[in-house]
C-alpha cells in the first residue's frame, strides 16, 4: 500500500469508507434539489435570456449597437473573450499539470474545475463569433473549399491560430472531462432507482464495466491526455496573446505577452474555481473532501501566478521607458495617468497588491477572505484585459481622433448574459453530474484518508501539531 508522509494533512477527513465516498457525492443527485438551487437557476436563466435577447438584437441590428467608435474598434467583446478564456484555463491546468506533478489534492477540485473550463470556453467562443456581426458567416474561419475564387483562410494570422487553438482546447478538454466522468456515471447508473434516471445514466455511462484492462487503459489515457493538454493550455493563451503581441499598436506589441497572459489566465482561473467551489462544498456538504488545506493550496497558486503577473506589469512599464520609443512610453504613461487611470489602478490594486495578502497564513486559510479575494481577482483580471485593449487604442497617433469608450446597454447585456448562461450550465452540472471524481477519490482514500492515516506512522493528529513548520 502506498503511504504518504506523516506531516501531510490528510486530503479526506472524517471516517470514510468506499461506500461513503459514493454516498456523499451522489447524494445531491439522488435527493431533491434545495430551494436555493431553484432560486439560483431561475435568476441565472433570466440573466441568460436577457443575454440571448441582447445577442439577437445585436445580430439583427448590427455591431453599431455596441459603444465602439472609429478609434476604439475593439472593446468589451474582446475583453470578455479573453476574460472567459482565462477563466477556462484553471480546469485543464488542474487536471493536466497537477496530474503530471502527481498532486493528489487536485481530486477535490478537478471535476468541477473542468466543467467550469468547458462552460467558460463556450462563453469565450461566443464573442469572436458575434463580433463578426454576421454569425451565419461564422464558418468562414475554417479552411473550407469555397466558391469565392479559392480563397483560403490566412494561416499566417494569429486570429486563425486562435480558431484552431480555442477549438482544439475546447474539444480536448471536453474529451478529458468526459473520459473521467464515464466510470462515475456507471456508479450512478448502478445505484439510482428512478427508471428515467437509470436510463439516462445508462446511456451516459457508455456501458462501463470497470474491469482491470479498462482501468489500465483509463489510467494511461488520463496520463497521455494530461501530457497533451499541458502544452495545449500554455499554447492557447500564448496564442490569444499573439492577437495583440504580433500587432504594431504601442502597448500591444510586447514580447512579454505570452507568459504574462498564461499566468494571468491561471490566476483568474483559480480565482473562479475558488468562487465556485467555496459555495459548492458548503451547499453539498463536501467539507471533508475539500477543506482548508485545499483552499490554501489554491491560494498559494494564486500568490505565485499573481506575483508573476505583477512582475510582468512592472517589466512592461520599465521596458516602455527603456526602449526609448516615445509612442511606447506614452502608451504606458497614458494608461496610468490618462483618462483611463481608474481602470489601470483598479487592475493594479486587484491583481498585484491584494493577492500579496495571501502571504499571511491566517488570511490564506480563511474561507471568507478567500471568497472575497476570488471576487476581487475576477474583477481585477477583467480590468487587466480592458486596460490592455482599450487604453492602448483610445489615443491614436493623430490627436484629433482621440476618443473614449462608453459601453451601451447591449455591451453590458451581452456580457452579463454570458455570466447568466455560464451559471445555468454550471448549476445544471452541479445538480446532475458527480461534482467530485468518485473513482479517483477512492484511489487516495487509503493513502490520504484521515482514518487510514491514523493507523500508520506517528498516528493521530500528528500532522496538525507538525504541519506548517
Amino acid at each position: 500500500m502506498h503511504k504518504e508522509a506523516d506531516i501531510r494533512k490528510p486530503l479526506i477527513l472524517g471516517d470514510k469508507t468506499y461506500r461513503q465516498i459514493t454516498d456523499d457525492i451522489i447524494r445531491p443527485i439522488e435527493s431533491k434539489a434545495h430551494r436555493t438551487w431553484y432560486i439560483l437557476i431561475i435568476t441565472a436563466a433570466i440573466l441568460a435570456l436577457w443575454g440571448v435577447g441582447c445577442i439577437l438584437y445585436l445580430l439583427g441590428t448590427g455591431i453599431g449597437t455596441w459603444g465602439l467608435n472609429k478609434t476604439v474598434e475593439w472593446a468589451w467583446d474582446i475583453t470578455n473573450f479573453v476574460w472567459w478564456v482565462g477563466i477556462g484555463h484553471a480546469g485543464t491546468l488542474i487536471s493536466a499539470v497537477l496530474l503530471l506533478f502527481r498532486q493528489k489534492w487536485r481530486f477535490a477540485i478537478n471535476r468541477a474545475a473542468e466543467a467550469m473550463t468547458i462552460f467558460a470556453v463556450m462563453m469565450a467562443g461566443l464573442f469572436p463569433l458575434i463580433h463578426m456581426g454576421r454569425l451565419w458567416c461564422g464558418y468562414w474561419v475554417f479552411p473550407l473549399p469555397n466558391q469565392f475564387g479559392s480563397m483560403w483562410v490566412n494561416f499566417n494570422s494569429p486570429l486563425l491560430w486562435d480558431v484552431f487553438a480555442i477549438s482544439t482546447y475546447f474539444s480536448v478538454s471536453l474529451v478529458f472531462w468526459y473520459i473521467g466522468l464515464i466510470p462515475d456515471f456507471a456508479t450512478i447508473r448502478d445505484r439510482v432507482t428512478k427508471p428515467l434516471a437509470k436510463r439516462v445514466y445508462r446511456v451516459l455511462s457508455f456501458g462501463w464495466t470497470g474491469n482491470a484492462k479498462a482501468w489500465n487503459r483509463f489510467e494511461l489515457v488520463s496520463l497521455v491526455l494530461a501530457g497533451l493538454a499541458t502544452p495545449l493550455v500554455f499554447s492557447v493563451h500564448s496564442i490569444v496573446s499573439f492577437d495583440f503581441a504580433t500587432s504594431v499598436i504601442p502597448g500591444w506589441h510586447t514580447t512579454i505577452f505570452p507568459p504574462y497572459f498564461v499566468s494571468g489566465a491561471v490566476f483568474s482561473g483559480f480565482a473562479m474555481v475558488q468562487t465556485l467551489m467555496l459555495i459548492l462544498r458548503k451547499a453539498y456538504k463536501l467539507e471533508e473532501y475539500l477543506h482548508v488545506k485545499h483552499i490554501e493550496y489554491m491560494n498559494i497558486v494564486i500568490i505565485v501566478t499573481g506575483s508573476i503577473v505583477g512582475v510582468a506589469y512592472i517589466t512592461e512599464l520599465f521596458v516602455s521607458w527603456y526602449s526609448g520609443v516615445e509612442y511606447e512610453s506614452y502608451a504606458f504613461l497614458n494608461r496610468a495617468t490618462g483618462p483611463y487611470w481608474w481602470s489601470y489602478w483598479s487592475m493594479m490594486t486587484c491583481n498585484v497588491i491584494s493577492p500579496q495578502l495571501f502571504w499571511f497564513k491566517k488570511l490564506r486559510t480563511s474561507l471568507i477572505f478567500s471568497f472575497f479575494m476570488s471576487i476581487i481577482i475576477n474583477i481585477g483580471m477583467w480590468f487587466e484585459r480592458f486596460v490592455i485593449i482599450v487604453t492602448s487604442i483610445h489615443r491614436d497617433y493623430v490627436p484629433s481622433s482621440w476618443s473614449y469608450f462608453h459601453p451601451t446597454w447591449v455591451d453590458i447585456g451581452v456580457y452579463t448574459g454570458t455570466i447568466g448562461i455560464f451559471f445555468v450550465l454550471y448549476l445544471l452540472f452541479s445538480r446532475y453530474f458527480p461534482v467530485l471524481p468518485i473513482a479517483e477519490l477512492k484511489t487516495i482514500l487509503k493513502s490520504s484518508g484521515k482514518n487510514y492515516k491514523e493507523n500508520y506512522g506517528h498516528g493521530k493528529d500528528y500532522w496538525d501539531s507538525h504541519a506548517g513548520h
Partner: protein
Amino acid sequence: MEDKVIYAMYDDDDILKEGAKSLVAQGVHITDVYSPMPIHGIDPIIGVQHTRLGIAAFLYGLTGTMLAAIGIRYFMIIDWPMNIGGKPSFSLIENIPAFIPIFFEFTVLCAAHGMAITYLLRNKTLPGMPPRNPDPRTTDDMFVIEISASDNSKHTLKEIAKMVKKTGVIEMEEKVIK
C-alpha cells in the same frame, strides 16, 4: 459458447490482491477483475498486459502533424500564395515559423481524439451500450474476481471454489454464461 464462471466478491482491494496472488500461485488463471476504481498493482498479478494506447496516440499525433503540413502547404503555398508584408510565400520551409502554432494544435487535436476514440472502442464503451459488470456493487465498494472454467484446464471449478474460499472472500457465485 457456454461457459461456467465463478465470481468471487471482496470488500477490500488489498484483500483481493492478496487473494489473487495466492490463487495465481496455485495455478489458477484469473479471467478478469472488476473494481470501482483502478487497483494499483493488480495487472502484473493477473497478467494484464500494459496497454498500447500510448503508441497509438503518438501515431495519431504524427498523422495530425502530417495532415496539417500537407493541408497548409496546399492552401498557402501551392493553391493561393498570399503576399503578407513581403513574407516568403512560395516555400513551405521558409514560411514554416508562422505555421508552427497550427501544426502543434492539429497534432494535439488528432492525438487526443484519435486516442480517445480508440480507447472507447477497445473498451467497448459507446453510448447506449448495456452495462456488463457482473454485479452493480462493483461500481460502488465491491471488488470481484472472475474465473472462468474454459480458462482453467488444470483445476475443476469445485477445486477453484475451495481455493477461493480461503482468500477472505465475502460472497461467491457460480454462473453459466452463454
